[in-house]
């Protein structure tokens, strides 16, 4: 028992490390961790505890760099714009608190829906898996149709297709490995493009330290939890698409609701990927694939992973509150332009490290496309065409 707790804590430490370093994902650590565990003949349950704790805590922590530095991954991509906007209003810590609350309460909502999921999830998957392409087309259409004017709908369609074309070219695996290409794609579409707009101002405003209350919309939490749980099982349906559906279902439009919803859905994608190993035997995330390599998941392993997730989520929440507060007081004091330049160098370096020089044109193109939505006044979610269009075309 004590060994499991120690490996949970090690996993949380590792997840925190990956979460704080922009552009570094637990998937980059998984091969190293599995190799090390096999070499040490580690108890597989300890290895599972380590990986689950790393995956869950990473989701919580990754909202700190995505909020203050504007460097996202697939899960935090949609949160960057509203969160960074709050940073520019001096409410960065509030944005981090909203994301953390979304993650923690999302886990609880996910647990509440678990019996339903275990009872009907398999049948639900059996029906929906044949219609993934169609579901994505409906989601894309809804995303575009929610823009207000005809010209904006046209721009949204253009952004969707441009992003989709970028996805088709860069995720084909011909330029570099598909997983590695995600780094310049998401950094460009959602990160660098936000940072470049931020460069127009000389510094970040001082962040408010007052204990602002977190306003929660139970409808967002409930619907987000339900949709997040069930849509996570579909291949190629990521947190972004699920958030769009949840937003449409709840009709909420405030940035606070959006941040809670996107972080809830993002956490549930990872949490339910562990449950799906038991239910359908398919890994939907990198960390779940690692667990699948280590053990045959049965009901007891599911309970063990629930325990680890709850423990890691609790500790990660406390860590985020502490680290988020420090970041909100520290980052505004830095020379903003120099800081953004350093972050840009870091992400460019990461791109070259993971993709080689071919990553640079991907990053430049993604940044250019990512600059379009704020300039023409449409939502940045249309950039998710980068994943959706290749999957839609692959289904037909």
């Amino acid at each position, binding site marked *: 028992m004590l060994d*499991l707790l120690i490996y949970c804590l090690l996993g949380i430490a590792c997840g925190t490390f990956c979460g704080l370093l922009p552009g570094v994902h637990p998937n980059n650590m998984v091969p190293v961790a599995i190799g090390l565990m096999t070499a040490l003949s*580690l108890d597989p*349950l300890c290895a599972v505890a380590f990986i689950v704790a790393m995956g869950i805590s990473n989701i919580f922590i990754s909202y700190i760099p995505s909020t203050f530095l504007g460097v996202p991954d697939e899960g935090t991509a949609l949160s960057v714009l509203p969160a960074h906007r709050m940073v520019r209003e001096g409410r960065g810590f509030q944005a981090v608190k909203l994301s953390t609350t979304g993650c923690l309460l999302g886990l609880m909502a996910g647990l509440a829906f678990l019996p339903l999921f275990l009872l009907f999830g398999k049948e639900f998957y059996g029906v929906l898996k044949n219609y993934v392409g169609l579901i994505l087309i409906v989601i894309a259409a809804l995303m575009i149709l929610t823009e207000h004017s005809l010209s904006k709908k046209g721009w949204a369609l253009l952004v969707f297709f441009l992003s989709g074309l970028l996805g088709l070219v860069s995720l084909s695996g011909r330029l570099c490995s598909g997983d590695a290409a995600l780094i310049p794609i998401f950094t460009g579409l959602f990160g660098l493009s936000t940072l470049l707009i931020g460069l127009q101002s000389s510094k970040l405003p001082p962040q408010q330290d007052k*204990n602002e209350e977190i*306003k929660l919309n139970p409808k967002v939490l409930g619907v987000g939890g339900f949709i997040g749980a069930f849509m996570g099982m579909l291949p190629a349906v990521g947190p972004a698409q699920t958030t769009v559906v949840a937003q449409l279902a709840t009709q909420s439009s405030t940035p606070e609701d959006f941040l809670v919803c996107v972080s809830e859905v993002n956490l549930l994608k990872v949490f339910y990927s562990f449950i799906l190993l038991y239910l359908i035997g398919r890994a939907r995330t990198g960390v779940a694939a690692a667990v699948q390599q280590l053990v045959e998941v049965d009901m007891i392993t599911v*309970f*063990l992973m629930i325990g*680890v997730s*709850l423990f890691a989520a609790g500790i990660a929440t406390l860590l985020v*509150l502490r680290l988020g507060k420090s970041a909100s007081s520290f980052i505004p004091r830095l020379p903003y332009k120099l800081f953004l330049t350093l972050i840009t160098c870091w992400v460019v370096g990461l791109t070259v490290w993971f993709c080689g020089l071919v990553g640079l044109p991907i990053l430049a193109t993604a940044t250019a496309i990512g600059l379009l939505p704020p300039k023409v006044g449409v939502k940045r979610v249309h950039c998710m065409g980068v994943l959706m269009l290749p999957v839609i075309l692959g289904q037909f």
Partner: protein
Amino acid sequence: MKEKTLVWLAAACSVVGVIVLCLSSVAARPKQVELNSVSQEAGKMVEVYGTIGEVRFSGEHVFVKLYGEDENWVEVPLFSRVRSGLGEFEVGDKMRVRGKAGTYKNKPQVVPSTASDVRIYRTSPVSPEFLDRYLGRFVKVQGKVRKVHQTASGKSLLLELENSGMVKVFVPFIPQATLEGAVRACGLVKEYKGELEIVVTCEAGLKPINA
């Protein structure tokens, strides 16, 4: 919701997590059983520990006979996908195996499903002068082959190995390996006509080593 409430919620979440983790780890960890009771636990997940007494190869699969202190044994089939994830091992090494208990042709067996269910503890060759401490146990010795006697039946050999002392090794079969230079012999320490000898139990228990 206030920040303080969030902190309390996180703390409660951690505590519940530890409780669930504790309960599930008790249920998830297989029962540790003695080798002689494996057949009574048929169908259940168990964990056994013992010394590798025999290693048999069959294509890409390996069959290990695991012995306990009281000469009870179970067979551990290491199918190719499990075997490929394991490092080197030989007779005399210790092994901890987690897997499904059962019987095959009335022989008790524990079947691991992944390489991580098997943990091997390598042991070192013992010095011939301390052989008496290992009576009735599996050991490894190594040394230069000084003499090879063929027994009267012609179906077994007796080797004399030299390594800071002489040690007799009984090989109850005609080995395929060339017995020249230095060899490593792994087997059971027995007493025969007042003298200690190592009885090699399988072909894999005798192998030439590079000088």
